[in-house]
């Protein structure tokens, strides 16, 4: 795994940002551990991981998309759609629910990829439309209300149970990230993803199969969003057609905080995970702070603080990149 850590070694300003996010994450954990009694309690850690696994999965797909220079605005709505589909299928069997949710996500992802590569429509617009369509479909399937899952087929295990002491969603996310890292750093196709983000035309001239790679990346993003939707349904016991609003932007924020430039061509899987955890931890720390009773910050502060976080990161990034190009 040493190469995993080596991928953080600074070669460019983007790498500096990636180190920055790790330091910030470590600092926040240290701050929480020193300040709050139960911050490092197993309960807190496990519930933190259980909940944030969904966002980590979505952020991973988003990171791959952004590395190609694209964007996927549909992931939130896709997660909601997948949660509904899996909830509807969960009475059949747990794997029907799982496969249905993933399949729904994969379908939307493929559709995104096809619209982007075949119709040559900008990713921003294509996935925006997909967001609306997925949202509408979810509402139609769910009849405008949440759909409870079946508790008889073991479907909820996916979201609620532990394996070897860790929540299953965390295992799923961890597996996804390891695969994602292997793919990006160690497989030819992963390097092609980055090369395409460096310049599509050049990549095509160099003989890369640009369309197929893009199609694959959007499909993976959809698939991971679908997986997050399955976890959502399993964890909260219901498919929720109106959930997932703004998740895509949260995922983009995680990716950006993780030092991946939105212009594509660079980025790291590990730092994306750190970015997602960092943003999630802001909320966690906020809860503890309220628990102390010194100040009482409403939950609404979390989006303000997340926004501030994003602000600081993008301003720092802008500073770093302008310095390195000057």
């Amino acid at each position, binding site marked *: 795994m040493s190469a995993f850590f080596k991928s953080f070694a600074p070669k460019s300003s983007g790498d500096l940002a990636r180190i920055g996010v790790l330091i910030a994450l470590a600092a926040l954990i240290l701050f929480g551990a020193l300040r709050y009694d139960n911050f490092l309690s197993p309960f807190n850690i496990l519930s933190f991981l259980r909940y944030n696994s969904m966002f980590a999965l979505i952020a991973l797909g988003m990171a791959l998309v952004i590395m190609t220079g694209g964007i996927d605005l549909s992931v939130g709505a896709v997660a909601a759609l997948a949660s509904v589909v899996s909830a509807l299928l969960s009475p059949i069997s747990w794997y029907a629910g799982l496969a249905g949710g993933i399949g729904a996500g994969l379908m939307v992802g493929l559709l995104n990829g096809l619209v982007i590569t075949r119709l040559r*429509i900008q990713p921003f617009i294509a996935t925006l439309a997909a967001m609306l369509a997925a949202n509408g479909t979810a*509402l*139609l399937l769910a009849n405008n209300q949440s759909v409870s899952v079946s508790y008889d087929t073991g479907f909820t295990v996916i979201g609620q149970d532990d394996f070897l002491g860790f929540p299953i969603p965390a295992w799923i996310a961890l597996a996804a990230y390891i695969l994602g890292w292997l793919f990006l750093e160690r497989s030819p196709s992963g390097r092609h993803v980055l090369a395409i983000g460096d310049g599509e035309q050049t990549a095509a001239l160099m003989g890369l199969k640009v369309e197929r790679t893009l199609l694959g990346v959007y499909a993976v993003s959809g698939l991971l969003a679908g997986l997050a939707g399955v976890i959502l349904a399993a964890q909260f016991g219901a498919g929720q057609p109106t959930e997932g609003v703004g998740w895509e932007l949260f995922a983009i924020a995680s990716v950006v905080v993780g030092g991946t430039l*939105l212009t594509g061509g660079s980025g790291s899987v590990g730092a994306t995970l750190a970015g997602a955890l960092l943003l999630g931890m802001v909320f966690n720390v906020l809860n503890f702070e309220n628990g102390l009773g010194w100040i009482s910050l409403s939950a609404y502060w979390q989006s303000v603080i997340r*926004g501030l976080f*994003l*602000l600081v990161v993008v301003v720092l990034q802008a500073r770093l990149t*302008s310095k390195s190009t000057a």
Partner: protein
Amino acid sequence: MTMTDTSLKPTATTASPLQLVSRYGVFVAFLALLVFNIAVTPNFLSWQTLNVNLTQVATIVIVATGMTLVIATGGIDLSVGSLMAISGALAPMIFMGKLLPIDNMALAVTLAFIIPVLVAAACGWFNGFLVTHFRIQPIVATLVFFIAGRGIAQVMTNGNLQVFKNPPFQFIAMGHIAGIPAQVVLMVVIAILAYCLIRFTVLGRQIIAVGGNEKAARLTGIPVRRVKTFVYVISGALAGIAGLIVVARNSASDANLVGMGMELDAIAAVAVGGSLLTGGRANIFGTLMGALVIQLVRYTLLANGVPDAAALVVKAGLIVVAVFIQQRADRS
């Protein structure tokens, strides 16, 4: 590749069918929807139908007008919905005296109109500042307020619903001017002003030039930063106005809901209306028509018993088709 360099024959610009569709498609779609509804939808040709549709479309058009200007410079503004929430949260706090007690109701209402819009404009300025000063991509820069803005509105109101009854303030949504709903009048005035800005003023030409080729624009002495900042300020201010209309119409302000998803509606209106999302064009009238078409599609489906959710799917298809036609026409 140009075959002959000097002897370029003055090309008589004959438009291809695709270009015709891209130019007039939104009108044709609009007319088709009208005809369809007149034939199929019961009671379509009524004063009430017109009112319902126009009042529902007013806020979208107002926000989309600002969005058109931002997109014309090659940018995008994701923060509009959140800025609506801020403005919508602020206004009732002012005239209900929650911020500071104001005895004079007229003054309080006047301030309730002015301050929220100024605050939203200031947020827009900040967006512009991030974009121009730090050269942050617009989609990321405005993402900051997209996330934080609604939070700010929720924190201000502590997430509570503010219910009120204030006829002078609510005139902006409930009142009528010469029999026309005030918000519709406002929408028309704003659209006309924006049209004139683009069509007749120096600033308007500069906005288009910046979106068309930013480097070249700077080299002709256009104050690129100022022009860009300006469009974000306008977009913010218009979002502020739209926020006021929404809370006035509902007699209540809910920071969790005001302006939710508005950025998407506005972008959709711009896209369907025929402004290229890559910048360099601003078709205000098209945006108006785009918003009307989207609204009319939704109304048509609803009036004929199709659920609202299905309208979303149709809207998605509409956006893809519209953008596809625009791009193809532009390339040919």
